[in-house]
Structure formats: C-alpha cells, structure tokens
C-alpha cells in the first residue's frame, strides 16, 4: 500500500530533524574534543642541552588531561639521526620545584641531575652512542 504523499513529507521532515540534531551533537563534540582525540597530549619544554653531534636532551612535561592537569615530567633525548624523543626517565619533584641539570660531558656522555625527587622510574643509561649518568636523592626508582 502506498503512503499518502503528505505522510511521506512528515516522515521525511521528522527524520531530517533527528539527523540534523544528531549531526549537531557529533559536530560539537568533534569540534570541542577532536583535536584532543587526535593529538591528546600537550608537551611543554623546559631547559635543554645539545651536544656537538646534534643530540638534544630536554626537560619535558607531558599532559594528557582533558580538564585540569595530569602532567608527567620526564627527560627526553633525541639523537641527531632519529626523529622522536625517547623518555630517559619519568620523575616527580613534589614540593622541590627546580630545573633539572642537563649537561653534556662530551659528545657521548650526558649527565642528568634531577635533584631531590619524590618519585622516579628506572632510567635508560645508554641510548645509541650516548651513556647517561644520573644524580638524584629522595626516592628509589619504582614503576608504582
């Protein structure tokens, strides 16, 4: 049985309204949170040091919170022949806020002074040709 033409129009209009409303909410959600979903973490950059070969070590803070702040502090090392930063160690300074000391002893030896920390992970001590030494106090390496 064929529906009357006016009923078809009403059904079409109702469907269109529902679709537009859904599209509006999806659009709003993607507009607000799209960048966060595609690229969810914000990286802030602190002090840095570069050796003669172009290897770059940098204090970084990676924050993946959608509201407020859920930052994790780390030391990143990027070798001259690589693209990415490798996290050497994650750490938390607690109330002892200060810049970590980053110093190249020579092109192959890097010194990282984290100072007083309340938490830190085990550290990467060798990456490519670079050997890394760490100085810190206040906590033992932990993954917890």
């Amino acid at each position: 049985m064929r529906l009357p033409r006016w009923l078809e129009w009403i059904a079409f209009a109702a469907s269109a309204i529902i679709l537009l409303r859904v599209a509006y909410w999806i659009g709003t959600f993607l507009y607000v949170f799209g960048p966060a979903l595609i690229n969810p973490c914000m990286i802030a950059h602190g002090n840095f040091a570069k050796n003669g070969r172009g290897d770059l070590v940098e204090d970084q803070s990676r924050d993946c919170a959608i509201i407020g702040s859920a930052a994790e502090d780390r030391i990143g090392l990027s070798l001259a022949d690589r693209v990415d930063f490798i996290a050497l160690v994650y750490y938390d300074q607690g109330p002892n806020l200060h810049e970590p000391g980053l110093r190249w002893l020579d092109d192959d030896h890097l010194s990282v002074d984290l100072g007083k920390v309340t938490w830190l992970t085990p550290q990467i001590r060798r990456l490519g040709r670079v050997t890394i030494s760490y100085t810190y106090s206040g906590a033992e390496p932990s993954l917890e």
Partner: protein
Amino acid sequence: MLATAACRQTFGKNSSPGFQGRMTLTERGLVLGAGTLLAKLDNKVLPFEADQDRIWTLLAVAYGGAVPLAVLASLRRAAKHWHGGDKCLAAIHLAQMGLPDIGKDAAHRLALAAELLDAGVRPRALARELGFDRPAGLGKYNYNPDEARVPAGSGYGSGFWTKGVAVGPTLTEGRSAGSGSRRINIVRDLPKVAVVVTRPDGTPIDDPKSPTGKLMAPPRANFREVYAAGTQNPTLFQINEDVGHFGRFDYRRDKASDTSFPAYKHASNYAAGVLMAGAGYTREQTHDISEKFAYLFSSNYETDKEERQYWTNRGWDDAHGGIWK
C-alpha cells in the same frame, strides 16, 4: 653617568646616522636609538633564540627597567612578517608593543651597553650588574626545535635560526609537533608572583606538596569566578574553554606566554572541580570526565592519579559546600 670622551667615541662607533626613538626593523636588523643594533638579521631572519638575552638586556637598559617577556614575542612576530615581505604588518606589531620612544640619554646608555656585550660581557651579567630582574621564562622563550637551525659546531651562529633545511630533531609527539603548532615552555620554579589561595574567610588551603605548604595559584586565580562560570550552565565547548588546556581557568598554563607552571598544577585541578560542581555535575561524573581520558593517554596514570583526584575532588567538595558561592 658622565659621558667621557671614550664613551662618546664608543657611542659613535655603535651608532649610525638617523635617530630611532623606537625599535625599527631595517635591512641590518633590529635597530633602536642612534642606530644601535639590537639583533642583526642573519640570512634575513632574526636569531631570537640565541639573541633573546641580548635583546632583552639592551631593551632593559634603554627603557631603564625590566621589559615584559611579551615584547620578545611581539618582536618575533614582527620579524616573521618582515621576513615574509609584509613590512607594514611588521611595523604594526612593533608599534603595538606600546613601548615609549627613548630619548638621547637612553640611546647613549644603549650604545654603551651594546659595546659591552659586543666586547664579550654576558647579557645576564650585565643585567645583574644593573639590577634588572630577568623574567623566569627568558632563555628558553619561544625556543622551537622544529625551526631550521645552523648546525652545532659551526662557530658563531651555531644553533641560530636559518633559512636552510632544519638540522637536528623535530618533535613528533603531542600538540607541539609539526609546523604551525605552538611551543610551550616550562617554568619549574614557583613564580615570584604566585599567591596563596585563601578561602573567603581568609584561611589558606593546605598543600603538603607545595613549596610553601599552601595551595599556590597565579595572581589571576579567582575561584568565585570559576564557580560562577560553572553556574551559567556551560556547554561542553564552554567547559573546555574554561578548564581545558589553556582555558581561562587553566591556572597551570598561561596562554599569553605559552608557559606551563607545574607549581600551579593543583590549582588547575582544584579549579576543574569547582567549575564542575558549579555546573551541576556530580562528584562521580566529574571524576569520570577527568580520569577516564587521562587513563587512556597518560603513562604514569597510577602515579599521578591519587593526587589529581584529590585536588579535583577537593575543589568539587569546597564548591559544593558553598565556599565559592
């Protein structure tokens, strides 16, 4: 200071004809006063990363006091437009900095300071000697590893921005990656302008993980305003604008200077709790929104979780209890 003959000779050596009362970009570089060069154009690009200490110190000498860091950001924008051939826009950026014209005496001081720096005196040492407090972010302001640089070990100019192919690593993670994205700097020390958050009855909020033992926030922090914004029935978009990254109540990050202040992390989470309580979200809903996202992407979720939850919940509890109404 008495102008000796030697000083006048120096002044003449550092100067060129044509007095500039305000900063001007010329083919030589950034010029102020009697032609004193604040930063030269290196391959038609101002090497701000390497020269920002010099520029800031010379400006402080010329204007007789510390100049805001935002001036460097304006200079960088002006230089980019100049480099891109849009000299009018560059001039507008220079004019909009709002710095007053300098007089002959200031130009004289400036030329002498430039001579000292050219002779090898470090800008920091000169600034310290003259009693200028360097801003916390100076020295890393707008450093951008994505931008092309002269390779290290190339003598004078190593690490300067260049027009050539980028040398060295590029960030490929996070929002700082890629061209055109913003560079966010960290200031780890507790800023001097930080204030203790006090409740309306004047009592401070304790924070054992703060260097002061109290919850610290930037001077702009106003939790009554945060709560009021929550009561305006905000949409998802508005919540993100308020307590999302670089939101107006995201006290950890300062949008104007693209700076992240770890010392304000707890204030940022506290504000998120206050706003969500004002907006009528339950404690559980607030927890779900703030935690589930972090769970997906944060690698030290378990480490940071309790602290983040504590401050978001505390903000929610205080606001729900009517403290910030």
